């Protein structure tokens, strides 16, 4: 089991690096897809099969397909690649470093705390998940649903053309 974990973890890190380091945006997106699949593998190892499959359906099967669409239809000539000003680059580097700091600080706290105790072996099964979501966390769940709905309506409004007058 732990061997499987280390293989998966190595793959996640490698594909994650591939996302950042690949020169070709398509390869970058494909690495991200592979990375998501390995994360789904981690969920399976944690006995959260439902979460794993939903992760594959939503992220790999829907969101990344749209990403791939956009990138495939983009013009990827190196000649007309936009070049940013040096101030923008500096700001980007600084904020990236700050983000790294925040992430490191938060993960360090988790690591020092030791592994989280498993509440029950079939915690990730759909029945228990439904119980937790719809009984204990009903209010946040419904709120986030409304948030998604409003985002969807917003996208519709933005995407809708004004009818042309002839």
């Amino acid at each position: 089991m732990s061997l499987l974990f280390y293989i998966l973890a190595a793959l996640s890190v490698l594909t994650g690096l591939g996302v950042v380091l690949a020169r070709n945006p398509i390869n970058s997106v494909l690495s991200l897809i592979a990375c998501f699949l390995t994360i789904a593998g981690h969920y399976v190892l944690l006995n959260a099969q439902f979460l794993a499959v939903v992760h594959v359906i939503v992220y790999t099967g829907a969101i990344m397909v749209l990403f791939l669409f956009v990138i495939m239809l983009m013009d990827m000539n190196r000649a007309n690649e936009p070049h940013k000003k040096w101030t923008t680059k500096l700001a980007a580097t600084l904020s990236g470093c700050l983000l790294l700091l925040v992430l490191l600080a938060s993960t360090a706290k988790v690591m020092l705390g030791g592994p989280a105790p498993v509440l029950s072996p079939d915690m990730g099964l759909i029945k228990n998940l439904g119980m937790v979501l719809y009984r204990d966390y009903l209010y946040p769940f419904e709120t986030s649903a409304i948030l998604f709905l409003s985002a969807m309506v917003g996208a519709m409004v933005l995407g809708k053309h004004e009818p042309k007058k002839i």
Partner: protein
Amino acid sequence: MDFDTLIFKTILLVVIFLISLVVAMYATYGERKIAAFFQDRFGPNRAGPWGLLQPVADGVKMFMKEEIIPVFANKGLFILGPSIAMFTACMTSAVIPWGGSLELFGKSYSLQVADLNIGILYIFAIVSLGVYGIMIGGWASNNKFSLLGSVRAGSQMISYELAMGLAIVALIMTNNTLSLNEIVVNQKNFHWNIFYQPLGFLIFLTTALAECNRAPFDLAECENELIGGYHTEFSSMKLGFYLFSEYVNMFISSAVISTLYFGGYNIPFGESFGLAPNLLTVLGTVFLFAKIIFFIFVFMWIRWTLPRFRYDQLMRLGWQWLVPLAILNMIITGAVIVFA
């Protein structure tokens, strides 16, 4: 899992893999024969008796053709595309219950490779990965027609996945489980889901046609606008993989339809015949395969009967008819469960 179960599952896996390939192979023959029948022709009848060796000849032809990779194509992705298409087509068969359980040497073995408690969602996830084979192959060809074909196929597949998912939700609500085996057991003695979910079945059948990129939804291939669509640049066995994965997908979709809506391997009132359990299991598997072959025939029947859609009509059908219908079906199902 003990050792002999492992061996049994491995053998089962290989056998199912071979069966799905053989069924897909002879589906190409069936398709041509049925097309010929519909168009008052003979169809293939030269290779072997009644042309039965035609699929073998086609396979040999596919292997012997010259392998061409276009100069400006992205070579790695060009090979990856058909591989993903074939791989995802073959992966789904693992969770389908092909039969009851066999008693061998005093132990009972289930004729299902993996009884996941989220079987339906697993199939759904693999189907959603199938888009990548088409999109990557189309893009890597570095050809405008291929790219447009793959965009068409991709957007069609993700649009119809939505309606398919909503149709399945209603089915899950009536069955109270996501495991395919339990869904089959629930349908014992003619309590087939088709009688409880007729609208859901129609939506599922339509979306299954669209997911397989079959006529009347075969807009991704279009001779007069897009040449061959996403596989224009492919030749030899890479093209073979794309064409073949369509037939494997058709076989698996038929199996899923028979399992979800038509009782799967369960023979109605089978226990009352007084047969030996092993014989009953084998007969159940034969029964399932009869249903699968019937649905493959339905797929072909539709292809050679209906005219194709225009692309905007296809999108309108998917988003403005099937999705609202599926939601309506869900609401009605929920209301019946709560109030009846």
